[in-house]
């Protein structure tokens, strides 16, 4: 079974785990513990181990119960991490625990827009929104999160490899916001042969292999017990 966001990540310390499964998760004094844990997640650039959805949801729930504890920067970071999570539903789950008031904040609002572009696969608009305005005096909305760009690119590449069997290198450049050289390096890294016309051939896997299948019937042994026992009696 694939590792979903709901499984306990290997990097979750026991202290946090016992906090989450007990009643202490409602104790407002523990908000600090969860916030520190989030900071550790943000500092960790390894995408395989730096996202603990359940802990972040617990923190958001605490904010829901104690509105005076709300720290918008924390919420921003939680949402940004959920944005690039491998499971597509994480961002929504975080949203359900917020409120209209929180969502009207500028940086949260920007994250919502980014998320719309990302989920709608409108990657060029996405990159423009994220890095477009040069004279932006505020820090980027995804500041303080190590490995954000890499995680993001991993996600987009995952989608590309699921959809395409062959794709133009130029199109890839636009989607992941890298220049030609970087894309070629990426292809070498993943072992994708690129031919002279700039068409990259992606490996076939179950998602991007369009094969007509027939779902065969699965007869379980238990269904035949009555027949077999009757046959035996004869």
């Amino acid at each position: 079974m694939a590792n979903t966001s709901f499984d306990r990540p290997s990097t979750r310390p026991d202290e946090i785990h016992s906090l989450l499964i007990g009643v202490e998760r409602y104790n407002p004094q523990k908000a600090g513990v969860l916030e520190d844990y989030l900071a550790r997640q943000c500092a960790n650039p390894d995408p395989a181990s730096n996202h603990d959805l359940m802990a972040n949801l617990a923190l958001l729930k605490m904010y829901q119960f104690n509105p005076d504890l709300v720290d918008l920067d924390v919420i921003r970071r939680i949402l940004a991490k959920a944005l690039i999570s491998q499971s597509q539903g994480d961002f929504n789950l975080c949203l359900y625990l917020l409120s209209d008031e929180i969502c009207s904040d500028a940086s949260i609002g920007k994250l919502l827009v980014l998320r719309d572009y990302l989920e709608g696969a409108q990657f060029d608009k996405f990159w423009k929104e994220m890095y477009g305005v040069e004279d932006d005096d505020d820090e980027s909305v995804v500041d303080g999160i190590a490995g954000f760009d890499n995680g993001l690119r991993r996600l987009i590449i995952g989608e590309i490899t699921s959809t395409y069997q062959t794709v133009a290198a130029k199109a890839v450049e636009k989607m992941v916001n890298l220049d030609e050289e970087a894309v070629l390096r990426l292809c070498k890294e993943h072992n994708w042969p690129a031919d002279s016309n700039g068409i990259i051939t992606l490996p076939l896997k179950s998602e991007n292999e369009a094969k007509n299948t027939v779902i065969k019937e699965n007869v379980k042994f238990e269904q035949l017990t009555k027949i077999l026992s009757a046959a035996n009696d004869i």
Partner: protein
Amino acid sequence: MYQENYDDVEFGGDVDLVANSYANSNLVEGELDEEELIMQAQAGVQSIPEPVRNFLANLHRNLANCNVGDLAYNYENQFVRLTDKFYGKEPWPEPQYVAALVGDDGLFLTLYRELYYRHIYSRLHPSMETRFRSFENYCDLFNYILNSDGPLELELPNQWLWDIVDEFIYQFQSFCTHRSRVSKRTPEEIELLKENTQVWNTYSVLNVLYSLIQKSSICEQLEAGQQGGDVTEAAGDFGVRPLYKMLGYFSIIGLVRVHCMLGDYTLALQTLENVELGNSRALFTRVTACHVTVYYYVGFAYLMMGRYADAIQSFVHILTFVSRTRQYHQRSYQFDAVNKKAEQMYALLAIAVSLSPVRVDESIHSYLREKYGDQQHKMQRGGDEATEIMSELYLYACPKFIMPNPPSYIDVEAAGSAMEPQNFQLKIFLREARLQLVIPTLRSFLRLYTTMDLDRLSTFLDMAPAELRNQLMVYKQRCRQIKWVGSPDLLKGEITSTTDLDFALQEDMIFIAESRVGRRYADWFIRNTNKIQDLVNNMENRQKTTIANAGKPKAEESSAASDAATPATAAVEA
């Protein structure tokens, strides 16, 4: 209790709710008070109709003797009938009159008051005072159960226990909604609310539920049951008694409900960790309302999480159950509640099936088509109309969401807009749904071809090729969901494709593939083979009996004849 009457007599309009000390006022007119009160109580008792008095006396006796069977009859039948007959539009007799009738039995009166308030909530309109008093009564009841020295001897029927927990949460939700409508509250009410923040406090409610769960060690019991361990040992002194065990179990379901009302769907599903949904003999099946509630909230949680396939599975399961057992549910009040939930689930199912088309059971499918066929078509076409219909169905069928905290009583305008949580949840859900609607639209086009050029398809769909490219990627992303495969943890699952249509892009050429379901013949053959085997067995048995009877003496001829007749009729019926 007695102080209430006194207040009404002396201090006309001033309603002093939460218990303060009346020590000063009592001392002055001691004796007159007593007499007056006794007369009032007697008058009150006289005003109770004879059948009701008998009912109350029976109830009291059965409670004292722990006669669960009779209590069930009292509670499920007589109470309902008497309510319909005498108290359709007014409350049941005042608790203090009932106290005069059965003597001052604290526990009985607490339970009676629970019924009394429950009746007011369902048939009449509860005032702020009633809400406060009801909360205090629940506190008394749960304090009694949770803080006793040893396990209580009390036993109540399961239906009653479920109704207590269910009603507790319902009154909590009703209170949250009531207080958040700040603009409709009078200034006195607002003052009361501000001063008494402990009444129907979210933490208190959660505390009750968690304490009941902990006291009964129900999680350990369920875990032990699943792993084949010793359930009695895991239960401890309190958990072995059915009162605690069932209250603990129903509190788990209650928690699921509260979490969903607060928008925390993952925690809701996680709470059901050890409750085996697939088990047809699980504890929640003992009370129909509980059974239906579990599946409703599980399905709803899945729907909000975007796991449409799982949501559909949940809803279909329970709706088939409800339609099959419809004729057995003649008890009126439970029947209505179950029916209402079933109707809501059909609405949610209509939404889910529009977003993620799958084949469902024939009878459900036909009912759904009959009731929501029109709306389903409109939803699948997308656009504004789809959103409108989806919102309508959603708001009809969703649970009543609540905000865990009191609103800001000062800033009335801000409170007004912020306090409709269902609109917020609806907004998020719609955003997901709009993206998901890509699937039915594209699917209907792609189904007709095996290969298609991107540009041509974009002209068909009347959109720019770049946009179509994006939509195809979205389709790919969305057709893969996590699907629950029967593990005890409802959150886990395997990533499977949820539509039967798949495709791959080679630059600008779309290659389309479809997965069909092969012909299923095994089931049909197995069933018919078994049928004919049964028939053959029956005929052989009949043959054997007639041969055996032929050898018997004449005296038993008549009985043999009747014996031969019965297997014959049995074979005919088979």
